[in-house]
């Protein structure tokens, strides 16, 4: 019996190893190909590893498009969005978890109700608004819909409601204002939830495509994603250049993911599960 379970586990391990390898094989292939010569990419007999290792695709890349600029744009958009989301989620989470006043539940339901409505469906009025504000083709316009994260508010409410009331009350009795309570009790005690929200929001704003595509019309404001989609055309047959551009776009997210992988998976599992 024990032997059967053991050999069963060996089989499972092998099956999972093969499946997970196949699953990420496109990325492995991509990274290796970005070091290949163009003629070794478009060939009848592809090899896994480059026949000749070359960096020419990456040097071509910096000449073809200002990817550093795109990178900075993505950092600005994701960074500002995440800052807004952190403040609003923690403060709203605190209020929804620990306050009682008329209308609280109404507002809470209103926020929950919007979680499941895809943002695509209300891009048109949002676009008209930022056009009226003169924000088309500005950072403000790109960041505009990303300042609120409904599922994050819900996540923080759940986390903060687990903080014992005694802690909050004793701080209040010591004469702390609500801002002090928020800053010195709530924020430190919900740190790991806030970190999860920050990372998840960072990664997903980084990947936004359609909204920046609509709003950013000049190259100066392109994010990594838009820049990649746009400049793919200028490479045409230069597959190697496209591959290198893809690698450059993937790396920042991959690094963030590998550093914070447990938090990200927990954060997504939680915001996903409980919404």
């Amino acid at each position: 019996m024990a032997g059967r379970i053991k050999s069963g586990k060996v089989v499972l391990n092998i099956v999972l190893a093969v499946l997970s390898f196949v699953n990420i094989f496109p990325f492995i292939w991509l990274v290796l190909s970005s070091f290949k010569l163009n003629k070794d990419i478009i060939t009848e007999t592809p090899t896994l590893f480059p026949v000749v290792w070359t960096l020419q695709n990456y040097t071509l890349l910096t000449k073809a498009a200002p990817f550093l600029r795109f990178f900075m744009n993505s950092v600005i958009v994701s960074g500002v969005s995440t800052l807004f989301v952190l403040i609003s989620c923690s403060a709203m989470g605190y209020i929804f978890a620990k306050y009682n006043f008329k209308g609280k539940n109404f507002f809470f339901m209103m926020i929950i109700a919007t979680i499941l409505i895809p943002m695509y469906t209300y891009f048109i009025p949002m676009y008209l608004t930022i056009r009226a504000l003169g924000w088309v083709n500005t950072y403000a316009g790109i960041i505009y819909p990303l300042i609120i994260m409904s599922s994050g508010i819900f996540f923080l409410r759940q986390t903060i409601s687990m903080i014992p009331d005694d802690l909050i009350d004793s701080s209040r009795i010591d004469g702390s204002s609500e801002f002090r309570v928020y800053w010195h009790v709530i924020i430190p005690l919900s740190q790991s939830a806030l970190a999860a929200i920050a990372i998840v929001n960072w990664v997903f704003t980084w990947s936004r495509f359609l909204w920046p595509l609509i709003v950013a019309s000049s190259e100066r404001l392109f994010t990594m994603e838009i820049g990649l989609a746009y400049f793919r055309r200028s490479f045409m047959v230069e597959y190697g250049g496209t591959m290198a551009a893809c690698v450059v776009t993937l790396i920042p997210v991959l690094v963030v993911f590998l550093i914070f992988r447990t938090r990200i998976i927990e954060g997504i599992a939680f915001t996903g599960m409980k919404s």
Partner: protein
Amino acid sequence: MLNALIGAPGSIRRNKAYFIMAIFLPVVFLFVVVRVIPILSTLALSFTNYNMQRPITKFVGLENFIRLFGDDIFQMSFRNSLQFVLVALPAEIILGLAIALMLNSELRAEGYFQTLFFIPYILPMVPAAIIWQWIYAPGNFGLANFFLESLGFHRVGWLIDSKVALNAIIAMHVWKNLGFFIVIFLVGLKDIPPDFRDASRVDGATAWQRIWRIELPIIRPVILFTSVMASIWALSAFTEVYIMTQGTDASTGVEISVLVFQIYVEGFRYFRMGYSSAICLVLFIVSLLLVLIQFRLFREK
């Protein structure tokens, strides 16, 4: 009067009132501005002939919706989006569950496998779609055809053959999102108290019986949630379709439209924003219907 309403100066109640005014109200205001008003405005716009390049806008009642019935491109995108749901949803649920069940057997390398399966989900869609466009490349240098030919099969025109193209894109969509479903199912399976598993082992149940009789019934709410997510994502698929069908040269890609693609084209290429809003409303109603149907199905059993 003021003291009665928000408490005496310096009191906890007064402090809370200040906090609400300083934080809660501004955030709610922003929320209303970037979510509630746009959602309601879409509804209102869908009954107008609003066009950004034309000054006169009037209320046209149901005209936009009637026009949708005669719009062949809309009908095609509607069917394509439905096919997206019908293929992607079962594929994601079945594959996700199968892999999660395999992962949930006290393996030492579980964390590593989970990470590897999760990577495609977390990485941005644009580069992922470009990779797949290249995997599906026509002729002999696409990876998919290379493997098919080495195994002795004929080449397939993955993104060229209009019968294959949509399903090829859906396969990519499933691959991209699978990691999410695996993780959610795994969380659900881990929440089952170990007693159940031990008891079934003592009773001599096979792994197969345990899965069908105990684990799947317990995680039914999780399956409901994931199938709701899967259908909403499938209905609102855009980036993968946009990238993979916008050919870099004449040799790749047929025009395949889905609902969000039509919203984009009508609204932001032709600026027919009233008409585009009507498609938004259709998309919203279809996803609402799908969610309601799923809740029904899962409750009745």
